């Protein structure tokens, strides 16, 4: 493993993460706008985005702060929205768990939906990558995303006026995530995992603190793993 291959992994990561610029710009601006509307200063909003770097959790917190919910409830709800980060961390561990501590800490801070999904898709496609290449690829994928998250939080906060509802920016996120997941449906268990996750998440939508997402996600993972095991046993004739 040479410096060159690590560098090219980083560059490949940047290329793979680049499309998310189209999503991060409106989403970060939206957070900036809503934060200003809720009474945060431009600097408050920037610190919020820099320290937490998690849009959905930040929006949840802003909304509940405005409703004057108890602080403990706000923290619990926003962290529940972010619980999936722990699952991402677990999923990344077999790939980058043996990297130096500072690299793992940096990658942890920069673990967002976009960097995770881009990186894990590549790691699964090319298992021969070294740990340094994987870390470089991951950091590359988040390079176009994180700076724009900070910058456009400020832009949105400074503009301070509401983006017209007709722009339907609320839907930028669902569309991106669907576009990101679709290419990952490589095997039947992947498809089944997604279908089960969707159905259970919809059934559990009424569960407080957005925990329905986690319940749906766990159900999907259980279904995918169970089916994978069954298919494997079927092939080897041990079933």
């Amino acid at each position, binding site marked *: 493993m040479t410096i060159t291959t690590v560098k090219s992994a980083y560059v490949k990561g940047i290329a793979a993460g680049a499309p998310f610029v189209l999503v991060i710009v409106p989403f970060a601006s939206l957070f900036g706008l809503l934060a200003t509307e809720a009474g945060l200063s431009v600097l408050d909003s920037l610190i919020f985005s820099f*320290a937490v770097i998690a849009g959905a959790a930040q929006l949840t917190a802003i909304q509940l702060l405005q409703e004057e919910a108890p602080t403990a409830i706000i923290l619990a709800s926003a*962290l529940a929205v*972010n619980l999936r980060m722990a699952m*991402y961390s677990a999923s990344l561990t077999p790939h980058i768990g043996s990297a130096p501590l500072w690299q793992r800490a940096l990658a942890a801070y920069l673990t967002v939906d976009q960097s995770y999904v881009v990186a894990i898709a590549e790691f699964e496609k090319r298992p021969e990558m070294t740990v340094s290449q994987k870390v470089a690829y991951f950091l590359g994928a988040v390079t176009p995303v994180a700076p724009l998250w900070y910058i456009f939080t400020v832009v949105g906060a400074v503009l301070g006026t509401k983006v017209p509802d007709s722009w339907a920016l609320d839907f930028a996120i669902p569309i991106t995530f669907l576009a990101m997941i*679709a290419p990952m449906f490589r095997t039947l268990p992947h498809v089944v995992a997604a279908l089960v996750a*969707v159905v259970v998440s919809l059934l559990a939508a009424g569960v407080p603190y957005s925990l329905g997402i986690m319940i749906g996600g766990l159900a*999907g993972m259980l279904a995918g*793993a169970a089916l994978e095991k069954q298919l494997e046993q079927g092939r080897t004739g041990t079933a």
Partner: protein
Amino acid sequence: MIDKTSLWIVIIGLAVGSFLLRFSFTGFVGDRAMPAWLIRHLRYTAVAVLPALVAPKVLWPTATGGDPDPARLAAAAVALTMGVMTKNVLAAMGAGAVTLYGMLYLLG
């Protein structure tokens, strides 16, 4: 408006808590081997958690007050289909956006 003390407690708490969630396994498990059954489940993290996150937003969008919206449903279906067919994230996003704006325009 928002109480500044609660705001800072929330920002700091959320920053520390989010980092710990993200660092939980990569940081504290590190290169110790994880059991095969766990790894088998973790393989499905992305394809399970993200659809679970998106499904309620597709079916009951906040922007319409939670009422199902034909434009958003169509956009989601097109983005997904395009993604499965082309395996191209950007093409899927583009097709979804075009569908969304086209339908919103047509339906007024």
